[in-house]
C-alpha cells in the first residue's frame, strides 16, 4: 500500500514536471541564444546591428548590419501574405460554408497533404519549375527572386491559415447565420455580412500565425530567393532573409568568432519577432473563445 502511494507520488511529480517542461524549454531556448549572442552585442551595439545597411561578415573590415536581411524577410513575408491570406480565407469559407459531402473531405485532405510536404521539397520543386519559369516569363536575369520565395512561402502558409480560419468560422453560433437567413438574406449575404464579423478575431489570429510561419521558414526561402544581402527595392530582385542567413552561413562561421555570435544575435531577433506574433495571435484567439 505504502509502495503504491510512493509510486503514485513519483508519477504525479513527473507529470507535473513534464507539464512545466514547455515553460522550461522556452526559457532554455532564449537563455542559450542569449548566452551565445550576448558577446556579439558587447562588440557591436544593437543600433548598429539592426540599423546597419551592410552585411559583410567575412570581409575586412567586417560589417554586421542586418537591415538588408530584415527588409528581405519583410519583403518576402509581405509578398507571401498578399498571396496567401485572401486565397486562404476564401478557401476556408468555401470549405466550411459552401461545399458539402465527399468534395469537402477531398478538399480537406488536399490541404492536409500540402501541410505534409516538407519545406525542402517545396524548395526543390521551386528550383526546377518556378524559378526557370519566372526567369523566362518576366524576362529577368535570374528567377531566384523575392517573388519566387513569396509564392512558395505563401503556399506553405496556406494550410495554417485555412485550418484555423475554418475553426473560427465553424465556431460562429449557428443562430447568427440562421437569423440572417430567416430575415431573407442569401447564404452569401449571411456569410459576408454576419458570419465573417463573428469569425474575424479567429481569422486575424490565423493570418498572424501564417505570418509567423512565413517569417520563420528557412529552407524553401533559402533555396528560392537568391540570397543577395542587399537592400531590396522590388519583389523581382534576389533578397536574403534572416533565416536563410543563419542557415547558409553557420556552416562556414568559425566557432566562437564574431561571425558565429552574430548569427545567434540574428536568432535572438527572430525569436523575439515570432514570440510577439504568437502572443498577439493567442490574444485574438482567446477573445474569440470568450
Amino acid at each position, binding site marked *: 500500500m505504502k509502495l503504491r502511494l510512493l509510486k503514485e507520488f513519483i508519477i504525479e511529480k513527473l507529470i507535473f514536471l513534464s507539464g512545466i517542461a*514547455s515553460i522550461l524549454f522556452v526559457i532554455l531556448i532564449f537563455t542559450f541564444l542569449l548566452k551565445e549572442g550576448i558577446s556579439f552585442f558587447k562588440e557591436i551595439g544593437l543600433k548598429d546591428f539592426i540599423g546597419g545597411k551592410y552585411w559583410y561578415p567575412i570581409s575586412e573590415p567586417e560589417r554586421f548590419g542586418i537591415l538588408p536581411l530584415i527588409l528581405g524577410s519583410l519583403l518576402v513575408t509581405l509578398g507571401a501574405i498578399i498571396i496567401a491570406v485572401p486565397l486562404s480565407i476564401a478557401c476556408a469559407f468555401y470549405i466550411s460554408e459552401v461545399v458539402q459531402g465527399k468534395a469537402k473531405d477531398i478538399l480537406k485532405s488536399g490541404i492536409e*497533404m500540402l501541410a505534409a510536404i516538407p519545406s525542402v521539397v517545396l524548395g526543390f520543386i521551386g528550383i526546377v519549375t518556378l524559378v526557370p519559369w519566372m526567369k523566362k516569363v518576366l524576362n529577368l536575369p535570374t528567377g531566384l527572386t523575392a517573388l519566387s520565395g513569396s509564392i512558395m512561402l505563401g503556399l506553405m502558409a496556406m494550410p495554417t491559415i485555412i485550418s484555423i480560419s475554418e475553426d473560427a468560422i465553424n465556431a460562429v453560433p449557428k443562430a447568427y447565420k440562421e437569423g440572417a437567413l430567416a430575415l431573407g438574406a442569401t447564404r452569401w449575404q449571411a456569410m459576408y455580412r454576419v458570419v465573417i464579423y463573428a469569425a474575424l478575431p479567429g481569422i486575424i489570429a490565423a493570418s498572424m500565425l501564417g505570418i509567423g510561419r512565413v517569417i520563420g521558414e528557412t*529552407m524553401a526561402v533559402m533555396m528560392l530567393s537568391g540570397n543577395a544581402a542587399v537592400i531590396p527595392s522590388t519583389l523581382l530582385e534576389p533578397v536574403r532573409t534572416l533565416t536563410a542567413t543563419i542557415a547558409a552561413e553557420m556552416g562556414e562561421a568559425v566557432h566562437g568568432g564574431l561571425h558565429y555570435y552574430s548569427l545567434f544575435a540574428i536568432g535572438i531577433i*527572430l525569436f523575439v519577432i515570432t514570440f510577439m506574433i504568437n502572443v498577439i495571435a493567442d490574444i485574438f484567439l482567446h477573445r474569440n473563445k470568450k
Partner: protein
Amino acid sequence: MRTTTKQKIAFSVLFLSTLMVILPVVFVLGTIIKNGWQGISWEFLTSMPRDGMRQGGIYPAIVGTVYLVSLSIVFSLPIGVMAAIYLNEYARDNLLTRLIRLAIVNLAGVSSVVYGLFGLALFVTFMKFGVSILSGALTLAIMNLPVIITASRESLANVPYQFREVSLSLGLSRWQTIRHSVLPFAIPGILTGAILSLARAAGETAPILFTVAAFYLPKLPASIFDQAMALPYHLYIISTQIPNIAVKTRYATAMVLVGISFTMNIFAVIIRSRLRKKKKW
C-alpha cells in the same frame, strides 16, 4: 443585380480561390511522381552513394532519418503525453496553466532554424554531445513537443467525464483513474499525434543542419554519437550544392521523402478513422 446572381458570382470566386490552393498541390505531387518514379529502384534505396553522390543510392540518408525520428520520439512522446495529462487532468485554471499554454504556443511558433541554433548551443556545444544523432534527435524532440501535447490533450479531453467519476467513486486514486479509465481510451488519438509529429520531424531540415547532418558520409552511423546523413538535408545539397547530378536522382530523392511523410500521414488518418468507428460512447 439580383442577390442570387451575386451569390453565384461570389461562390464562383470562392471556388476559384480554393482551386488555386489545391492545384499547386496536385502540380507538386504530380511533378515529383512523374519524374521521380523512374529513379526509384531497389538499388537506389539500399545502396551507398558513390562518386560524390552522383551515383549510387540514398541508403545512409534513409537510415539516418529513421534513427533521428525514432530517437526523437523516444524523448518527446513520454514528456508530451505526461504534459498533456497534467494539463487535462491536474491543472487548474490559474496563472501557471496560462503560462504553460503560452509556452506551448511559442514552442510551436519558434522558427525551425532557431531550433537549429538552440540545438547547436545546448546539445552540441554546452552538453558536448557534438554534431551527432543524439543532438539532432533532442532538438527535433523539443520542436515536436507542441504537436504531441496538443494532440494528446485533445484526445484526453474527448474521453467522457463520467469515466473519471465512476472510477473515482469506486475509490480509485486519481492516478489509477487516469491509468485505467482514461488513458486506454485516449491511446489512438495520442498515437495519431505521435505519428504526425514523426512525419513532420522526418521532413525537417533546418533543425538538423548544425546538429547532425553530414554532407557526404557513405557509411552507416555506428552509435547515436555519430554524425549521419539525413534525407531532407541530402535533398537540399543535391539540389543546390552539387552540379551535374541526374535530374531523376533529385526527383527520386524528393519522392522518397514525400513518400515517407505521406505514408505516415495516411497511417495516422487510418488510426483516427478506426477510432471514430469504434467509439461507443
